[in-house]
């Protein structure tokens, strides 16, 4: 069931009501991230940071180990009497690899947590829903939520100020 709202404040209040009613399988769709919506929906802090951290640690370790193995172990060459391996000269490339792998971790971690890319979504077939990237806000409650009942859920969303509510079949 999708309910359309026209302002950021009204969709925020609707989200708070749906959260307090105890729904689990529901979501809010907005054209831009609405500040404070995570709290209104009762979402926890995103886990993307762990992926970036893992990427960063992998990058730094890869850089240091690679340089040590290549220049000090596999094919050592004396250059100006300098040590075969020094953490200082190995730092800049390792630092760059930390950032590189960390960035890959963030982007792909975000896509993984969001289960994207996704080639098909039932909502994307709806003409009205296409306005979500334009100027409308939607609250979507899935029918298989244990709290869901067609009449009462509709009433809840209407009381929260929605003018347009429809049920989308998958």
């Amino acid at each position, binding site marked *: 069931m999708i309910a359309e709202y026209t302002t950021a404040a009204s969709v925020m209040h609707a989200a708070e009501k749906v959260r307090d009613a105890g729904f689990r399988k529901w979501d809010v769709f907005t054209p*831009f*991230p609405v*500040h404070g919506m995570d709290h209104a929906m009762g*979402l926890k802090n995103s886990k*993307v940071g762990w992926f970036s951290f893992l990427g960063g640690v992998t990058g730094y370790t890869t850089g240091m180990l690679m340089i040590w193995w290549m220049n000090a172990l596999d094919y050592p060459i004396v250059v100006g009497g300098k040590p075969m391996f020094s953490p200082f000269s190995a730092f800049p490339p390792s630092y760059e690899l930390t950032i590189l792998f960390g*960035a890959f971790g963030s982007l792909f971690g975000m896509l993984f947590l969001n289960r994207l890319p996704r080639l098909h979504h039932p909502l994307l077939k709806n003409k009205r829903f296409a306005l979500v990237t334009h100027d409308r806000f939607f609250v979507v409650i899935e029918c298989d939520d244990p709290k869901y009942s067609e009449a009462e859920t509709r009433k809840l969303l209407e009381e929260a100020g929605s003018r347009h509510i429809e049920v989308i079949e998958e």
Partner: protein
Amino acid sequence: MSATATQSAVPANIPQPPAELQRIPLVANGHGFGWISDRVSSICEGKAPLWWWISFIISFGCLCMLGFMLSWQISTGVGVWGNMHPVMWGWDIVNFVWWIGIGHAGTLISAILFLLRQRWRTGVNRAAEAMTIFAVMCAGIYPALHVGRVWYDWWLFPIPNSNSIWPQFRSPLMWDVFAVSTYFTVSVLFWYMGLIPDMAVLRDRAKSKLRQFMYGLGALGWTGSNRHWSNYEKAYLILAGLSTPLVLSVHSIVSLDFSVSQLPGWHTTIFPPYFVAGAVFSGFGMVLTLLVPLRSICKLQDLITMRHIDLMCKVTLATGSIVGYAYSMEFFIAWYSGSPMESFHFMNRALGPYQWAWLLMVIPNVVVPQVFWFKKCRQTLWFVFIISIIVNVGMWFERFVIIVIGLHRDFLPSSWGYFSPSKVDICTYIGTFGLFFTMFLLFIRFLPMIAISEVKGVIPQADPHHPLGGAKVEERVPDDEG
């Protein structure tokens, strides 16, 4: 909705600050969400306008010249360039450092200003990030080609080769390989991530099946779900946090190519911060050169407002002054160090045969941007445009001064020389502009040049606690104690 409506939405009994303290809105004329989508998307919808075709054909012509020049250079050898003993780094490295410096403004706008919560960045960040990527592409050509035998470029990467020799990581040139390739990759990731929700906008507006499919592919099935936004915003924040040390490190490492050597004029500790400031300075020059005409041609005056231009001029002024400080500090240290080689180098820089280049560096970079202290100068568009070009010229000569003057008179007077570019040098340089502008024109034609969803997020309508965002306005009773 007009500007007066913005004012009247605030209840009369809340005291308003005086007019001069009112923040100028980031999107002028109180436009709403729909207007932003329509305005930005319309640039990449419909037929390409005449100005686009004319500029595209010219740019593409230059790009073809670049292809010809590079083929000539590869098939003949680096001798077609003006590089000659003692100046073995000529226009190739000058142009490399110049182009990569230009890229820095994009990352500064997208990452550092994001962390600093400078909300005005939303109007300009997409175009600036695109500029970064294309500038780094132009920059990458030079180090790849100047090695002479291009087919051995893969030796730069840690890939096993038939001699079982690995890259030598004690050399700053190897650090540079990692810095520049990471910079390019992370810039592309950051740029693409910002594009995901905006490609969804174009997908949902698309009239033809092909456009729907192509933008749909780019949008990766984005629906605008808040559960997605939550992860997205966190990832964006982390990418900004990672790009900030990255952008500072890239030009620092580029400067280490010079300062780790023992040449007077190069061997200085001031180089990393000085290069980074210069990079941001030249990058903002290029952002202004691109956006001042584009905002008029594409009718984006309400999205890239005079306030945006004003702020960018101020950043140009600030970084230009840092560069000026670095120039004078170099001279001071040359005298204070007591090193005769160092003193000679700087006397030679200011009074030697390349004095003209030194003046072309100091006057455009230090003296000219000082006009931005005056509001009138920051608000006159044609004037800002001219200054931005002068800044780009000045920064090009900064690299020329550092590289060519640094090399042309080294320790042995018997090996002194004078560098002049060849025709191939000049045509290759013009050709890189062809590459840059071809890419940039394709970008504004096919992708939204303003971050639609980010701009929507900074207008008052997006704030659930603002009257325009739908918040109920309650009559506020003045405190009894107050």
